[in-house]
């Protein structure tokens, strides 16, 4: 695991629980620090994972440092709005489009947020828990 | 010079291709030569004294198995080959090992209704 105390120095009020650094309120600062700080140098954002816990949504950013072969998870809990990190990691664009497509979470700051996997005319966001499964729209391939 | 190196590489490349002209062809003529199929192969299902517990119905990912029971004794056991993906879950998790997948893989038919096969009836006719 990367040495935690560097992170704790710079971000004292970010708690680390269940192996994830919780950065709900300052995600942009934390990510840009993790990327640019020479000792940590997390230069690759592997993927953004979205989970829908009905009352709130959680985003997990999996970061990997290719030089030190270290990985860390940063989690953000929020409602339906999130800040886009495409400015820091270019690879986040496809992830954010897919999460918007399947979860309906809007990312402010994303160059052009559009549906990625589903056809543009698809209504609803399938991976949300309240998505009606036996919807007649899904009968089209029966 | 690089020209001679590339000409040499071209000639070597050509001779590695021509080398194969004198080797035996690897194509197998399917209808005439039967392919060798081993015992672990997962093909058509066969049923043997099934107790109708319905465990395979719970474990099938594609929902292809239909167990028809009339007050506790088995009347029909239909597998829908449109949906079946031959994963073998029913065979692995069947408590009494009564359903097994055989080596027979030629299941093509020209009308869809043939694909819903009642294995219990087949077991009686054999």
């Amino acid at each position: 695991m990367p040495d935690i105390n560097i992170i704790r120095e710079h971000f004292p009020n970010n708690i680390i629980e269940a192996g994830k650094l919780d950065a709900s309120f300052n995600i942009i600062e934390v990510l840009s620090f993790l990327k640019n700080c020479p000792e940590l140098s997390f230069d690759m954002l592997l993927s953004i994972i979205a989970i829908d816990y009905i009352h709130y949504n959680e985003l997990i950013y999996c970061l990997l440092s290719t030089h030190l072969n270290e990985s860390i998870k940063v989690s953000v809990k929020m409602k339906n709005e999130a800040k886009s990190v495409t400015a820091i990691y270019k690879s986040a664009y496809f992830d954010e489009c897919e999460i918007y497509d399947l979860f309906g979470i809007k990312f402010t700051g994303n160059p052009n947020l559009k549906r990625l996997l589903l056809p543009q005319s698809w209504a609803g966001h399938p991976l949300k828990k309240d998505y009606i499964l036996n919807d007649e729209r899904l009968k089209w391939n029966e | 010079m690089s020209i001679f190196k590339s000409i040499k590489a071209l000639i070597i490349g050509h001779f590695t291709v021509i080398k194969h002209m004198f080797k035996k062809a690897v194509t197998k003529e399917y209808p005439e030569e039967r392919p060798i199929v081993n015992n672990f192969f997962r093909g058509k299902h066969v049923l043997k004294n099934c107790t109708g517990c319905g465990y395979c119905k719970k474990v099938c990912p594609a929902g292809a198995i239909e167990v028809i029971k009339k007050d506790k004794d088995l009347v029909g056991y239909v597998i829908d080959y449109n949906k079946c993906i031959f994963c073998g879950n029913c065979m692995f998790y069947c408590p009494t090992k009564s359903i097994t997948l055989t080596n027979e893989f030629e299941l093509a038919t020209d009308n869809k209704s043939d694909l819903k096969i009642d294995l219990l009836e087949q077991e009686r006719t054999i």
Partner: protein
Amino acid sequence: MNKMTLNLGPQHPATHGVLRLIIDLDGEEVVSAEPDIGYLHRGMEKLAETRNYYQYLPMVDRIDYLSGFFYSYAFCNAVEELNHIKVPQKASYIRIMLMELNRISSHLLWFGTYLIDLGAISPIFYAFRERELIMDYFEKITGQRMMYNYFTFGGVRHDIPFFDDVQSIINTIGDKIGDYERLLSENPIFLDRTVNVGVISEKKATEWALTGPNLRASGVLSDFRVNMPIYDDIDFDIVLTNEGDCYSRYLVRIYEMRESIKIIQQCIQWLGQCSSRDLPFLEKVTLKTFPNQEVFSSVEAPRGLSMCYLNSIGGNTPYRVKWRTSSFYSTQILKDILVGVTVPEIMAIYGSLDVVLPEVDR
């Protein structure tokens, strides 16, 4: 500037599946390229929410049908970590051997189709002739050529009775790779088509989150097999070239095939000399209740790092499964590296990234 938008449609001989590239052409030069994906989206993550763990296991091979073992290993490993199941040593070795064989067969398929994209007709038949040997071996021990359903939670379904044909397979493949290299590695036309074409610098590769052979071809030393516990007592070295063009991606994959042969050789030695009769290959376990926990389990697939995120809140169906696949990001980088490139080079670059569409759309 009269732009012609050409879309390399979902149905095109060289898109390895159903990718649609909307390309703005100025003459033969590409002005902008926009990948449009989703034609093969089967909703793997939504399926997981309505199926229990045993039902979902056979579906996992289908995420990337060319490397089925890797994805079933990632899923089984996630469930085993969730329930703290300890996999017997023999099962781990069988898993490594099958995964490395699968890596060779996936690289062989890439080699054949990449050469067809560049116009050479015969290498695909040589590559498929070798791949057929591996496919027949998989059919002999797991039952199917591609959709194996052979790994299960706690080990493998049944024991592998014999290894001698694995030895003969890797011997024939070993010298056949020498054939490919003689046929292509110095071929002037192949060099002219691939050397410094589609160069991906080290910074650009990490920025666009490329992993696997594409990353190692740009000179970044990152192979996830290093921190996978089951690879600990197997020594293999990571293949690295640092030009980052199509030719170095070709070289990385050819040498990786040789590395996999060395790994399989060690697995056979271990499996052969250990008295194979008494060692268990499966940890008998019945999974009823699951702890309320989340797990990240990843594996070094032939195309890059594949990560399975499993989140369960008790009950026997997973609450959320997320698959991180590497082709998803290799398609995204096309937007960046296809600018200012001529039409034939699109095929050369796209082919060299080894993008397989089921992995992209899941």
